[in-house]
């Protein structure tokens, strides 16, 4: 068990390094550089003193060869220093730390909603004996997956803010402000959870142990929840682990649509001005969350299914 966790942590370091390197290369391939973008944004006219720009580039190290820049940045990143944001001059880590609580609230609420709504839909759709209701419910997830997030957001704002005035359309104020953005983010996520869970519930309900349960005299609800659901939850759990990454990515769109402060907005702003240190910080942080969630998911598997043994020795042979 301990060996397994250590091995997984070593893998996680590899993933973080890869994420860092790939994002570094991609950002380097983009035309222009942050200094030009910053200078252009900060001043009205196009005449910027070339000497000043060169000085700035030198200050941030953009004039060095690419490999040297990479080594330099990586070396500092390893020590937890992602440098200063080019656009604001504040350290990247504190920029992210300030934005983090808002985004955690949003993604956390969205994840909760996604699991509750998606899971609930899957359970009801597979439980009901009304054919039409089942068909209707099962056709919702594909719809939820396919409509674009920003469109869902705009629709919700139109209906619940502008028409019904139930929830504010934008801003960060309290729980009421959280409802619409979290729902927007939860819809595509929950749809995926629902699709996977409904499919694996139907598979589980076809298994022989379900017949055994029915033969015991168990009612349908008991069979559904006590026997099928737990067996069906593993694939859904895997999906939830993967969706955490999607939630962070989705927060970029949602926070922009609802004008909320948070990691997503910071990312969007940083990308527009090519603020490489910030973008790098976001990428590494996102990868960190993703890796941590999936490690957690893997550690939860054995609790749900006793057949899964977390083992460091994968070569357990067939007999």
């Amino acid at each position, binding site marked *: 068990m301990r060996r397994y966790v250590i091995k997984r942590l070593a893998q996680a370091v590899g993933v973080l390094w890869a994420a860092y390197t790939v994002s570094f290369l991609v950002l380097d391939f983009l035309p222009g550089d942050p200094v030009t973008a910053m200078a252009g944004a900060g001043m009205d006219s196009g005449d910027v003193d070339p000497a000043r720009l060169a000085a700035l580039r030198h200050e941030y190290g953009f004039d060095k060869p690419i490999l040297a820049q990479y080594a330099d940045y990586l070396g500092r990143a390893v020590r937890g220093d992602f440098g200063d944001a080019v656009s604001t001059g504040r350290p990247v880590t504190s920029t992210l730390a300030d934005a983090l609580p808002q985004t955690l609230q949003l993604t956390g609420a969205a994840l909760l909603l996604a699991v509750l709504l998606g899971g609930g839909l899957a359970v009801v759709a597979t439980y009901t004996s009304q054919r039409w209701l089942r068909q209707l419910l099962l056709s919702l997830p594909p719809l939820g997956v396919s409509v674009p997030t920003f469109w869902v957001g705009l629709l919700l704002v139109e209906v619940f803010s502008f028409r019904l005035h139930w929830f504010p359309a934008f801003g960060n104020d309290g729980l009421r402000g959280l409802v619409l953005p979290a729902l927007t983010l939860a819809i595509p996520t929950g749809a995926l959870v629902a699709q996977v869970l409904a499919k694996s519930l139907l598979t589980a309900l076809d298994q022989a142990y379900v*017949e*055994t349960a029915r*033969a*015991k*005299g*168990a009612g349908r609800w008991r069979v559904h929840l006590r026997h099928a659901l737990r*067996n069906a939850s593993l694939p859904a759990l895997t999906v939830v682990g993967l969706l955490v990454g999607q939630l962070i990515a989705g927060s970029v769109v949602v926070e922009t649509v609802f004008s909320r402060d948070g990691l997503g907005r910071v990312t969007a702003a940083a990308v527009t001005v090519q603020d490489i240190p910030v973008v790098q910080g976001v990428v590494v942080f996102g990868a960190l969350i993703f890796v941590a969630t999936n490690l957690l998911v893997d550690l939860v598997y054995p609790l749900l299914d006793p057949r899964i043994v977390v083992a460091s020795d994968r070569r*357990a042979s067939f007999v």
Partner: protein
Amino acid sequence: MTDERENGEDVTTPLLEIRGLSVSYRTRGGTVPAVRGVDLDVLPGQVTAVVGESGSGKSTTAHAVTRLLAANGTIDAGTVRFGRHDLATLSEAELRTVRGARIGLVPQDPTVSLNPVKRIGEQVAEVLRIHGLATRRSAPAEAVAVLDRAGLPDAAVRARQYPHELSGGMRQRALIAIAIAAKPELIIADEPTSALDVTVQRVILDHLQHLTEESGTAILLVTHDLGVAADRAQRLVVMEQGRVVEAGPTRDILADPRHEYTRRLLASAPSLTAARPRTPASAPKANAVPLVEVRHLVKEFRLPRTEDGPQVLRAVDDVSFTLHRGQTLALVGESGSGKSTTARLALRLTDASAGHILFDGTDITTARGARARELRRRAQLIYQNPYASLDPRFSIGEVITEPLRAFKVGDRASRLARARELLDRVALPAATLERRPAELSGGQRQRVAIARALALSPDLVVCDEPVSALDVSVQAQVLDLLAELQADTGVAYLFISHDLAVVRQIAHQVAVMRSGRIVETGPPEDLFTHPRHAYTRELLAAIPGGRAPSPTATVESTTS
């Protein structure tokens, strides 16, 4: 035809009385009737066996009793009287008070019939909890008591374990515990032991019988194995294509089968028939090089390490045997005895830990590359499950010619001609070439697999339980075909089976394996008549049908 029963001998009211039962399944191709107008009685405290082949509707009939049909199955007509209820029309809620409490079910495959994520004790306790026979507090202890009654050793320990930690036999005992927990009046046992080893089969059936005799519980036993039915049941119901073709006291039916189908079933039951004529074993010429010679073969598997350091499992332990051309050597044993591993070693599908394998005089123990490939050409394999061993996307023609294509034998036209010839050999029409595996029955598929194995005219064919997934009458046909092909082509078979009765029909030499070792070898006649090793005797005793009166001489036993 069906009314041979009640010759005035049983006047008791039946516990279960099925009349005119019809069940059909909705499929994409329309409604398929599975059970058509079945009448069936189960008397209190008696064992009634329903026998028939797959597709005969025996299992559907049994499941229809408590309406545990698949989602697309419906009862179209008939009554299922149980006590004062008609189960066919009872409300779902009332039916639930019957299921588990008054009618228990022992399902077919113990390896998949327990919920994998729940502890054994919890699953037994659930029956008691559902029917209000135990409180949350008392249920765990009662579950242990029931498990103990079902014959599970160390019941208290087992109750805390999960299904995957138990062997198939132990799981079936747990399922029996679930079935008997509420002390039902009737137990429906649907092929309760077909997935188990023969020796385990016997112990389980003995125990089930003992339990029910003690408590006066009746059993509706569904089985494809006439031998099992003959041993256990007082009454027999023979089904074919959804209809009951013959029913009555077991002794009478076995002694004097009226219906042609019953006779056919009796004739093909391997356990009830004597050895059929085999290809005469042409005595190997003096000094002839054996086709396969295995010397002191050992195969070890690494197990996950424990506190005591690395563990090894010796799956094959000092095994030696010789197989001559044109002969059949059978490796017999139960699951885990190492018989399949031995065959895989002989085919070089896995590496030996020690020992030597000689194929046609050459040492192939470590053959790789071109030499191993040459061996592939001369040694072929027929798998146990014809449903899984044929690529569903290939046409039958493609399946059969694949070995030819792999070895670049001939051109397209000659390969097709060869496929046609092979199909003819295995008695399938040439039109089969264009069809897909899914369109064929199990027996037809196994014929295709045999044709594929013979495509390259190999010297050796390893048959890994080639008939155990097939119906008995089909089994007999496939065994006959294998024997015939051997007589024609002189191919040698390494025949792996858990079923001594099958082996008796085909093997020239039998090697009995247990825990990786060969405990006894000899011609089947000797083994059957003078078994030397205790384990061989145990295996022989476990063959079902042993207690049945033989179909030919039973007149006197009926009066006893």
